[in-house]
């Protein structure tokens, strides 16, 4: 349970980080909070000769708001995100992810960028951010590109990010009036537990209380945070009723690709997806109706 011999490079600029990655990839990994990566190195799940730490790149820290949208620096810790006044005031659904994630000691170290870029199927931020139409900014010496989260993930622990790209920012767009989001998750214990299944919902209601847009994103039940368009389609142009939520939940259950493991069988996870979809939609709908 020791981290094998590895060279640690502490980059102070993005350029430096990209150069180091160019030089050592694929025998290198970017290191941010390290709460996943260091455990993976200790247990041998990941084996590389070089770690490129980006922790000293100050520009990657901090949460800021402009015109109602949210910019989250990749090195922002989960705790910092959770405590950011703008998040506390305006983004209660993000808190549902930050507060159920792991434990304080982890949240004080783990970063938003790491939680997204590691692309672990049960990660908590990707589903809710996807439901909120968020995107990530990938920086490389060749330039920056913004990638919507729904196209960022390719497979379990795989993304479209190339080795010399650094995820610098998560962008949550301004929530239009009538938009509400929520994150519902199920775990086997109340504290410090990994999600067995999770569902994030984003719901946009128009002035006549009809659903104009609905995004249902599943966590921990597919290789990637899965945006279920068929579930959203069940809701669009309908009033947000329990019946409609049930239909969306059924669609979400059909779309889920759960596996069986020590935390539960595929059937159990699929059943949870239905329950959590209804709960997330109910909560998102309540928020959508709140005056802002």
């Amino acid at each position, binding site marked *: 349970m020791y981290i094998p*011999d590895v*060279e640690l490079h502490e980059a102070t600029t993005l350029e430096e980080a990209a150069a180091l990655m160019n030089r050592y990839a694929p025998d290198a990994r970017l290191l941010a909070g390290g709460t996943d990566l260091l455990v993976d190195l200790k247990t041998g799940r990941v084996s590389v000769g070089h*770690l490129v730490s980006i922790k000293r790149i100050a520009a990657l820290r901090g949460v800021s708001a402009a015109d109602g949208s949210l910019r989250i620096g990749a090195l922002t810790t989960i705790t910092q995100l959770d405590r950011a006044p703008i998040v506390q005031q305006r983004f209660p659904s993000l808190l549902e992810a930050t*507060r159920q994630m792991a434990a*304080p000691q982890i949240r*004080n170290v783990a970063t938003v960028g790491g939680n997204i870029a590691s692309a672990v199927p049960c990660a908590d931020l990707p589903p809710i951010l996807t439901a909120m139409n968020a995107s990530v900014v990938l920086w490389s010496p060749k330039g920056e590109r913004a990638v919507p989260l729904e196209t960022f993930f390719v497979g379990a622990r795989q993304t479209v990010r190339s080795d010399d790209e650094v995820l610098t920012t998560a962008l949550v767009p301004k929530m239009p009036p009538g938009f509400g989001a929520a994150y519902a998750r199920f775990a086997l214990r109340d*504290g410090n537990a990994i999600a067995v299944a999770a569902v994030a919902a984003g719901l946009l209601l128009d002035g006549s209380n009809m659903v104009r847009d609905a995004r249902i994103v599943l966590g921990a039940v597919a290789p990637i945070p899965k945006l279920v368009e068929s579930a959203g389609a069940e809701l669009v142009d309908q009033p947000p009723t329990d019946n409609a939520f049930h239909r969306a939940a059924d669609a979400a259950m059909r779309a889920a690709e759960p596996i069986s*493991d020590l935390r539960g069988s595929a059937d159990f996870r699929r059943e949870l997806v239905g329950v959590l979809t209804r709960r997330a939609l109910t*909560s998102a709908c309540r928020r959508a109706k709140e005056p802002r």
Partner: protein
Amino acid sequence: MGVARTLTINGDAYTVAVEPAETLLDVLRDKLHLTGTKKGCNAGDCGACTVLVDGEAMNSCLLLATEMEGKAITTIEGLACATGGDADAAQLTPLQKAFVHEGAIQCGYCTPGVVMAATALLNRNPNPTTDEIKEALAGNLCRCTGYAGILRAVQRCKSSSCRVGTAHQSGHQPAGAASANQHGGQCPPYNSVGVSIPRVDAADKVTGRAQYTADIHLPNMIHGKILGSPIAHGRIKRIDVSQAKALPGVVAVVTGADVPDTLYGVSPARYDEHVLAKDKVRHVGDPVAAVAAIDERTAEKALGLIEVEYEELPAVFDPLHAVAEGAPQLHERYKRNINTHVDQSFGDVEKWFAESHCVREETFTGNHVYQSPLEPHASIATWDPDGTLVLYSSTQVPHYVQYMMAHVLHLPLGKIRVIRPAVGGGFGGKAATTPLDLCAAILSRKTGRPVKMVYSREEMFHYGRGRHKQYMKYKLGVDRQGKIKAFKSEIYLDGGAYTSFGVVTAYYAGSMMPTLYHIPNFKYDGYRVMTNKPACGAMRGHGVPQPRFAFECLLNMVADDLGIDPIEIRRRNAMTPNTRTVNDLDIGSCEFRATLDGAEEKSGWNEKYRRAAGFSPRGDAGDQGASQDETGRGLQSARGNVRRGIGVGCGGFVSGAGYCIYRGQVQLSHEKPQEHFQKRSIFPHANAIVKISEDGMAAVLLIGAAEIGQGSDTVLTQMCAESLGIPVSRLRIRSEDSDISPLDLGAYSSRVTLMAGHAVSRAGAAVVDKMRPYAARMLGCDESEVVARDGKLFVRQKQGSGTFLPPAADGDAAGTGGDKKGPDPFFCPWEEVARQYFNDNGPLVGTGCYKPPEGLGGDYKGATVGTSPAYSFGTSVCELSVDLETGKVKIERFTDYHDCGTAINPRAVHGQVEGAIVMGAGETIMEDVQFDERGQILNPNLHGYLMMTIKDAPEIFSGIVDSYEPRGPFGAKEIGEGSTLPVLGAVAHAIANATGVWIKDLPITPEKILNAIREK
């Protein structure tokens, strides 16, 4: 090779060579020897390594030391207040003091991490709510306290008005854990016994000063690791260690060829383990080779360079398959893999089933539960120049370790010195000699250097010795009134690959059943079966919790069938004092009915349970009872889908096994004559020496009883101080070193309070006896009239009832008493008498010992298992809610009453109950070691193996009923294991009450609940 880095730790700048991949935890512990920060899991799951970095709590096992430059690091060592003062207050922060006084500390291994996390919380939020406290501490696992004391301590420290208690606050009653001592307001007749003093080791543990085995660093020490088998069953064809030996830094490599041929184990009739595999491996992780190197990292690397060629053999993992003809055989000597078959029959069950009004038959299945103490097993061995082996071991049973080391290494016991440093929890998992103990000794002898060996969390799971998973087929017959007429039990125990404690486990699984209820006819068939999994052993409640769970469930089902209230049916069958059970166990004191009455009343049982119509296991939908707290759990449980349930379970345990694990006297087992079993103890099971300092101001209690977190040092100090007649503050205990302290068999079978308690009380009394002639001369009375109390020697007052009443202690230093009406109040200072004794005779020393009563148990095979001088009894009521859509169970409240005889330290009793409830409840709903089809453990870590966190733990009320056990010291009996036994059944019953379905398969997971509801 490392790079010099400057780390700012507790305000001091340390420049230290750091490897690039080195964690802050390893630098703190191994390079700076700041060992207050503990390594519990090394994966961020347990929080024992929590430090503050720039004020925020972080797991130091997940931080690279290199990246910590320029940050302010605070460890537990950095919390001390600069202000001195009285000994009690010295050097502790208000939070630490609250931990000391609220029972927040038991084994102490999680304590530094919890204190750091709570410190971070209070610094940021001086007045946190209960939920905020729980959230802040959710990353810190505690296996001992059930979090109740921790929560009280942090709550007490809220805001700046942290009150600091005094050392002796007997009257303090914590919310939710009030003592229900029904003494009717009468003061117990003791000064030190019956008082909730803080633990004697609390200050050491809360400051990180307590040294656990892995914290100890000896000069020239090297580090060992063991290579485990990667396959579940196979023959070793070839081992090549040449590459490992060639690795720079490797000092020695040993394999099966280098270790003695002697087999070892626990049950003497079934020694079946080699230190390292000689030819076969029988489970994943079975020890194959061991390496010693200049550091642990190098040793670990060397393991990867050992080449082993195996011939893989078919393996078997299910005991029900393993007993079939033609199944793979683990050991030649155990035909059909049956390690032990117990066949006991008392009375005539078939006749009485036929005559029963109601007969019900059910099958139940248990789970693989692992003790998971926060402190991993560890050993350090070194050899003195005279050939004495010195072994530091994290063990519950120093004497049995000494005995087994002697057996394997062919050394006289007298040439083995076992030191038991602070132990971070055991629960039965440290009740046997480990491969670490043996390999460290062998590697140390080979290299001439001290060798330290510590299990990783994963290696702990592979070493095993957890609870046996049991498959139970039960049949219960009762009459029209619900009185038990006959009970038949058939149990298959999944033993794993070796015997360990298993013979005893198999017997306990049956023998304890008739101790709780009157069972006139009882038949038990037990089979312990070998499978290709880590050996199972003894865990809290040894063999009994799963059978007890099954019995309690079955009794509740029968109560439902008959329409009798579940508590009432227990009352009708409850054990009564001074009874010989059908299997010849002698019950002495028994206040079982009082525990039923207490739990029934305190929990509001009648109102809550009877509301469920017809007493069927059916709960009310939605919000049952206006008195229930709002437990809005956000999205996890929309209110309409939540059902509440209430359930009851009972249990009890022995207060120490009646017989030693091995036969005969303390002697190298190879030299023992063949002897038949005798129904008496050959030697005393507990032995104590009290040595008085030459000035008479202090006493030192020497006893080898193992403090493993349960609080034995504290209660033994209390009992000894009581019998010496001095305050606890004048007594120190030394229990850690076999060179210093006489033999005690250790912390297993809940034996310490009763057995060691007798030894220390007798040793104290022996000291007072030696002082009598001197005191009598000074007091002018007869020796027999001398009484020691409060640091004084008095003349016993011959008043009415003859009970002793000390004169008012008015501080009259002349020792003449304030009242001049006669010679009665006359007293002399304890220390003056002790000095006079010393002047004439030299050292003032008293000894005491304890042998269990002779002749315990019946005359049938296995009659010894279950014998004890005394038995405990308890009742638990569980209240919980179940989310019917997800199957999620939230255990909300426990009400527990126990008969533990006299509570020597009520706070310690409550601490055992609180810890047992949380462990037992977790065991019922979430704990399970899972294996794949090749015998690999799927969850050998603390994020896969789930134990309750502070957020999962219920609110607990613990009550103690008035009871006195004549065979116990000061009337005391056990609490540590008996408190686990009622829990599983109570949780299962409450789930059935909430959902309307019985789930008879542990753990009762959300998935099983949903499936059962669907199939209803």
